[in-house]
């Protein structure tokens, strides 16, 4: 047996004939108390304190929007189901900050803060929540599914998995057109079981597409723990099946998320094998606004334990240590977020619902006779 290696289990088969694999450790740069691992801090892409402050701002905004979403939903003002975000802010904000303007995102439904950082306006956010005409996507889809050509965000639907494979095709087309972009695609731990995951990683490996896959391993797919999702523990090991580079990162650590993502994105851009990043984190809130008391399927102590690892608190501690920010700055950020959100809600609420004709538009690039006819019947013109 090669030192340090493991397979699923020890066997008596001479080890050189056995597929050997070793799940990696989880990279952490920023400790919960705000101190850093000096050696890792030096490794790889660096990030200034000023940048960290600005990212913290986005994390705070993301969390505030999440809180508002829940409030508005409780008041019955949000249409559809909203998926919670609290506790995962470092993942998408760290990862998406690693992208350049020409890069693209294939989102999952739980990366709201990162998408706002990428340019989705707060008015758009709340217009989508209200499913009105202020939503780019005309209020047709769930309030957590985003797509925006101008911001480099590929549209997704609710089914988990398939966006990964079209993210690979899209990345391939960028190469084909001699463009420089990289496509970063997000999915959850549950997403790794889907057909889309398999074909995406396989095609990415074969065509060596400029893709970085980020698995947000938040320990659960609704109520199903990751131990029921797969027999492996570190999801980055799945890279082994496809010839990709797999790395596991503490998803509650903004610095590690940024550094590993930046490294991956630039390496992939310059022709390296596609990357599979696992971000190890935790969903603090319920799955969505339709989830029931989560304690049905996970112990309260577990949630509390993870709260200690809060990504925002960690960044604050870091900035306080370095002196780059003070408590007052955080308070100002929070107040500003609040203010912006209130203004955006007001603006969004003023948008009218989409016109009735939108029921039958955009099915094709034209409106076929049957839809014209059905529309007339529906609005009672016949």
């Amino acid at each position: 047996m090669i030192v340090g290696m493991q397979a699923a289990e020890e066997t008596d088969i001479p080890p050189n004939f056995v597929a050997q694999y070793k799940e990696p450790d989880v990279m952490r740069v920023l400790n919960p108390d705000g101190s850093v691992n000096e050696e890792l801090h030096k490794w790889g892409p660096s990030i200034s304190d000023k940048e960290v402050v600005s990212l913290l701002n986005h994390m705070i905004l993301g969390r505030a929007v999440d809180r508002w979403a829940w409030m508005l939903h409780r008041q019955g003002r949000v249409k559809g189901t909203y998926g919670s975000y609290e506790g995962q802010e470092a993942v998408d904000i760290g990862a998406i900050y690693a992208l350049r303007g020409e890069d693209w995102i294939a989102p999952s439904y739980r990366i709201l803060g990162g998408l706002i950082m990428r340019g989705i306006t707060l008015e758009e956010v709340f217009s989508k929540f209200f499913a009105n005409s202020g939503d780019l996507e005309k209020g047709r889809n769930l309030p957590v599914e985003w797509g925006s050509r101008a911001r480099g965000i590929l549209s997704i639907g609710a089914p988990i998995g398939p966006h990964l494979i079209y993210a690979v095709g899209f990345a391939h087309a960028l190469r084909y057109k001699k463009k420089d972009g990289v496509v970063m695609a997000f999915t959850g731990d549950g997403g790794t079981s889907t057909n889309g995951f398999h074909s995406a990683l396989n095609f990415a490996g074969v065509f060596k597409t400029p893709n970085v896959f980020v698995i947000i391993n938040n320990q659960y797919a609704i109520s199903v723990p990751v131990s029921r999702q797969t027999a492996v523990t570190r999801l980055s090991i799945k890279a082994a099946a496809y010839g990709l580079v797999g790395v596991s990162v503490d998803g509650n650590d903004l610095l590690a998320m940024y550094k590993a993502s930046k490294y991956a994105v630039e390496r992939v851009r310059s022709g390296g094998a596609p990357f599979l990043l696992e971000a190890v984190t935790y969903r603090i809130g319920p799955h969505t606004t339709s989830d029931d008391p989560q304690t049905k399927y996970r112990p309260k102590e577990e949630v509390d334990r993870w709260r200690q690892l809060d990504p925002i608190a960690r960044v604050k501690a870091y900035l306080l240590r370095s002196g780059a920010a003070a408590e007052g700055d955080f308070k100002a950020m929070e107040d500003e977020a609040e203010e912006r959100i209130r203004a955006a809600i007001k603006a969004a609420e003023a948008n009218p619902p989409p016109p009735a004709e939108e029921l039958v538009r955009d099915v094709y690039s034209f409106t076929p006779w049957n839809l014209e006819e059905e529309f007339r019947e529906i609005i009672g013109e016949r």
Partner: protein
Amino acid sequence: MARAINQALREEMRRSEDVVVLGEDVGKKGGVFLVTEGLLDEFGPERVMDTPLSESGIIGFAMGLAMAGLRPVAEIQFVDFIYQGFEELINHVAKLRYRSGNEFASPLVVRAPYGPGVRVGLYHSQSPETYFIHTPGLIVVTPSSPYNAKGLLKAAVRGEDPVVFLEPKRVYWSPKEEVPDEDYVVELGKGRIAREGRDVTVITYGASVWDALKAADEVAGDISVEVIDLMTLWPLDINLVLSSVKKTGRLVVVHEAPRTLGLGAEISALVAEKAVEYLAAPVIRVTGPDVPTAPISLEDLYVPNTARIKSGVMRAMKY
């Protein structure tokens, strides 16, 4: 209805150890609509299996269980996700008995909430029954009420053929209805007259049954509407359909699925073939439009509501 289905599962699981339940979140969570609530506690994790997030896996795995003699009831969390298991369902579950010359069969039940009406958009509101009805080898069932939901599901679990059991999520929690505690089945392949009438027949199923009944009520002073609740969409209860149409001479078919090649098309064609001489008016279809399902923003326009059903009935009468 959710509770009635829960009761059916519980009773069938008590009846035979071969009955097992599997799907995403069917265990501790009891399903996102709580249909499998409490089953894990009573029957344990061997018989109530949370699975990885893979519809392909759920249906394929269930097929293997069925081939080995178990009676799996697989839950697809929303029917909108079933396409990820279409290869397994359409090419294998449905075709196994035929291709193997009856050496093997896969009597399993795939349950799934379906249909619009709770404002959750394109991927939580679909009505894909046509895909299943058009697939030889599948039995397609959709209950309309707690009572028939329980009896139909029990019949499905005990049958020898694969059943796609579509649960209209719009009526999961109401209307409520008394459901007997004892064991009973509602025979597959048979519809029911939900309301007797003389002037015009409305054929429908699932949640729309309630809308049709309401429409019938509202026009009752002028028109006597017979409402048929198909319950089993395929094989269709052709005798019931024809006898009602022969009586009334007018037919309106109502469904939430898109119009083009929705079940209404088949019923219209069959009635023309078999009873055209009884028809005083062409068959009228009142259905969802041919769009990729109800958008959140305009869902109310999508669902064929009472007003549209009434207007369909009027058109049939006025012809």
